[in-house]
């Protein structure tokens, strides 16, 4: 999957998983930080995003540092998914 397509798909999935009813995909800057700044997400949201990666993409992110890097932004999530699904393939 192309990264741009994946980024748009992730935005929709994040809005649904985190109940961000007031946002549309266009409101989310893929380069902006997900936590504190940007969307202002918190630790409960982090759990939901980890679950999203597991459920939607079959990826278990168990290493804390890897998890922190993967959840930096929507772009970082897309990069993590692409690199790990390519490696598996």
């Amino acid at each position, binding site marked *: 999957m192309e990264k741009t397509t994946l980024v748009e798909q992730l935005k929709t999935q994040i809005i649904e*998983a*985190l*109940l*961000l*009813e*007031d946002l549309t995909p266009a409101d989310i800057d893929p380069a902006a930080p997900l936590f504190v700044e940007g969307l*202002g997400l918190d630790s*409960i949201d982090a*759990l*939901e995003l980890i*679950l999203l990666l*597991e*459920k939607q993409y079959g990826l278990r992110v168990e290493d804390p540092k890897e998890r922190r890097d993967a959840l930096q932004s929507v772009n970082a999530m897309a990069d993590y998914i692409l690199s790990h699904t390519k490696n598996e393939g």
Partner: protein
Amino acid sequence: MHAYLNAAGLISPQRTFENDFSCTLNTQGAAILPAIEPDYKGLINPVQLRRMSRILKLGTAAAQLCINNAGGRQPDAIIVGTGLACVNDLEVFLKSVIETDEQGVSSIPFINSLHNTVAAQVARTLKIQSYNNTHCHRGASFENALLDALMLLHEKEHRQILVGGIDEFSRHYYNLLTTKVTSGEGAGFFLLSDLPAGENSVKISAVRTFYAPGEDFIPRFLAEQHTPVHHLDAALLGMNGAPGDDALYRRLIDCLFPPGTPLITYKHLCGEYPTSSAFALALAARAIAAGAFPPPAILRPGKPATPHKVLIYNHYQNCNHTLILVEKAGLM
């Protein structure tokens, strides 16, 4: 033990969230009375709002209304009574457990499904970092929360306690009931203190709960409170329209309350639910402060023009019987 009720916030099937206790909304013949909800965005931080289920919104908004009505006074402790708690969210959580075969269950339905979630959320919102308790005792849940508050105030552990009674309509629970009556829901929060805050403060003189009591528990309770029946300015009764349930109230009307005692009912205004006595307490407090009960609540008018001392009697499915004695602050 007693406490002063210094402010209230009530979300109910009437327009009480606007502090309108006229109770004029016609609820005749309705099977379910849903709460009329305020615009939550004016009462709850939008960041917190997004993860809240309906009962959390009801509870948090009612608590905030109470604090607003108290002029922003900060409570030291929070105590909540709830019969069914977050039962609708529990259903969502259990369904997700089954659907995912216990693997990868989302945390939000779990957090929202706990019995003490409302008290926790209110405490988080209002930054109450001390005593925090939730009582779940079917139809006596709210009264147990009140008793807890009265004891804390008596022991002088805390000076301002936020006490709530909250329940949300549950379709599954309703379907399980063998006797169908008009079902309701609501969230009522009260700021209780050891001192009155103003001329609209109401004194909660006594609270008592009974399980399957004998015949004369009300006269005995009134005797303990040195309150002869003819000193009551009104009796607020939890009649719900079910002949079996109402027979107990009818017997009292015939045998205990003299014809001059005004009789007030409230479940035709808010519906039946385990913590409906929170609605009754708010109604009584408002009537004592305003000098009259709203006409739609009056079952039998009586002599006294202004209610100063009111007995609230409710029973839930003839198991939990509860009495709350409230009076104008400053009465001897």
